[in-house]
């Protein structure tokens, strides 16, 4: 009956009960910090890039070495993303849908790149494929270039970006379970049809999210690529490397112009990421805990 009357009024301990002063101080510190660390540098990048006007900015970006760097970055990112989609989906499928020995070990291996310094990641490939490396002499004998060439850059980028798509999908697919797939199979669907019409639609937003993060990292990677690229102008320079070279030559406008493109990429990624998280929260939340 009168439940409300009987219950003594319990004063709820509220989390936001501090003095207003404390509250504003805390918010102020956070805002100040963000301004200093994030917003100002971003503004500085664009300010420096346009310091000599839009003409100089465009000139810097249309320089042949720079356009080559942009092209190479796009190519490397594209190859890495495609590779990561194919291998990531296969690996996630295997891990989430089957039971086998050493599964946990495989998951650890997939996440390894997150805990390895990018420079080491690059160095590993130099030690393996470089002139003095393990396979170096054989590669030289057969005229195959890996280090200081596109294959090396792609390898290093894939190594660094590998966990993004796979990890995202493993968690998502494990949470979704195998019942829908089993059901499709028992209804007579082939494995391929089951994948295309049942699995893929269920993971598409998680996949897209993983691709987005993977792409951003692939385009922005510096350390691993710096070690294997050899920094040959117009040939093996990616955008981040080009920024460094231009900066070291005191060509600030050009350096910041290229940097502004990378910053733009970051902003677009951030906007898309926020959009995905807002629109497909459920699908992504399952996979976001890594």
């Amino acid at each position, binding site marked *: *009956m*009168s439940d409300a*009357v*009987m219950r003594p009024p319990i004063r709820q301990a509220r989390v936001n009960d501090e003095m207003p002063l404390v509250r504003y101080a805390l918010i102020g510190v956070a805002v100040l910090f963000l301004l200093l660390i994030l917003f100002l540098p971003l503004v500085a990048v664009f300010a420096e890039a346009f310091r000599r006007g839009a003409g100089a900015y465009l000139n810097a970006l249309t320089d042949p070495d720079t356009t080559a760097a942009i092209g190479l970055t796009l190519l490397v990112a594209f190859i890495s993303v495609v590779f990561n989609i194919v291998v990531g989906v296969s690996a996630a499928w295997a891990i989430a849908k089957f039971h086998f020995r050493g599964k946990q070990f495989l998951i650890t291996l997939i996440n390894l790149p997150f805990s390895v310094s990018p420079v080491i990641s690059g160095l590993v490939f130099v030690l393996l494929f470089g002139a003095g490396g393990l396979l170096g002499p054989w590669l030289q004998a057969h005229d195959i270039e890996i280090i200081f060439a596109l294959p090396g850059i792609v390898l290093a980028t894939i190594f660094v970006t590998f966990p993004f798509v796979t990890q995202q999908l493993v968690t998502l697919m494990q949470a979704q379970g195998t*019942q*829908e797939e*089993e*059901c*499709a*199979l*028992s*209804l*007579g*669907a*082939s494995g391929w*049809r089951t994948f295309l*019409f*049942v699995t893929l*639609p*269920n993971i598409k937003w998680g996949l897209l999210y993983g691709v987005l993060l993977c792409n951003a990292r692939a385009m922005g990677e510096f350390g691993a690529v710096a070690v294997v690229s050899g920094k040959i102008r117009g040939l093996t320079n990616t955008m981040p490397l080009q920024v460094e070279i231009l900066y070291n030559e005191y060509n600030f406008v050009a350096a910041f112009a290229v940097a502004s493109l990378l910053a733009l990429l970051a902003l677009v990624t951030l906007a898309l990421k926020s959009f995905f998280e807002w629109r497909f929260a459920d699908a992504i939340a399952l996979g976001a805990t890594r």
Partner: protein
Amino acid sequence: MSVAVTVENIKKEFGQYPALRGASLKVHGGELMAILGPSGSGKTTLLRIVAGLEQPEGGRVMFDDLDAATLSLRERRIGFVFQHYALFRHMTVLDNVAFGLRAQPRHTRPDPVEIKRRSLELLELVQLGEFGNRYPAQLSGGQRQRVALARALAIKPRVLLLDEPFGALDAKVRKELRRWLREFHDQTGHTTLFVTHDQDEAFELADRVAVLNEGRVEQVGSPRVLTNNPASSFVAKFLEESDLAMAPRVLSAERYNRATKVRLRGVSGSA
């Protein structure tokens, strides 16, 4: 058209743990049989082996005179209804039902008009004719269950297998759907096997009940036979316990109510 199912001496282990240790069972054509047992007795594993979703380590499953081991999952034509329905969440109800028809190999696949007609017909059969354009998330539990059933029936299954068909529903819907399923079975006449841990459900719904314990079938019989002539002490004890399991819950609920009333009176008296 109804097919008899024979399960002979099925063995299955998961790692070191034996789930089934020689389970045997015969289901007559057109019969509605319940597999009843405590959790961990191997009920669901047995159902999945009949469906072909798990491979047994020994023994065999027969559909009439046909050894199931010679059939691929696709050729088995089993209508399997999963405990949580496993509806394809990104497809409409109608597409869900049509999935099995569209997945058939090209030479046996009906044309799109026929697929649509048949899917609608099946939806009518489960009394969801107007829900074709909805998505599974927009349906109630009982409605989802019936969609899953319609989808399973689309492939004209030899046998219908239901894993805990009412497990995910609340008590009222469960009762209604139970009655509905029984009538539905009497109309359509598929050989049907369903798994349950609920004795009431098994006894009310099934022609015969198979009691499973630790991977073996202890007894198969009509509810009356099981109650009057339990074949083993386990069967007798299990049925008795299921009966009793209801009692303490009712008792304690009453006691709880009484206690609350007293407390309420006491508090409002002092206020």
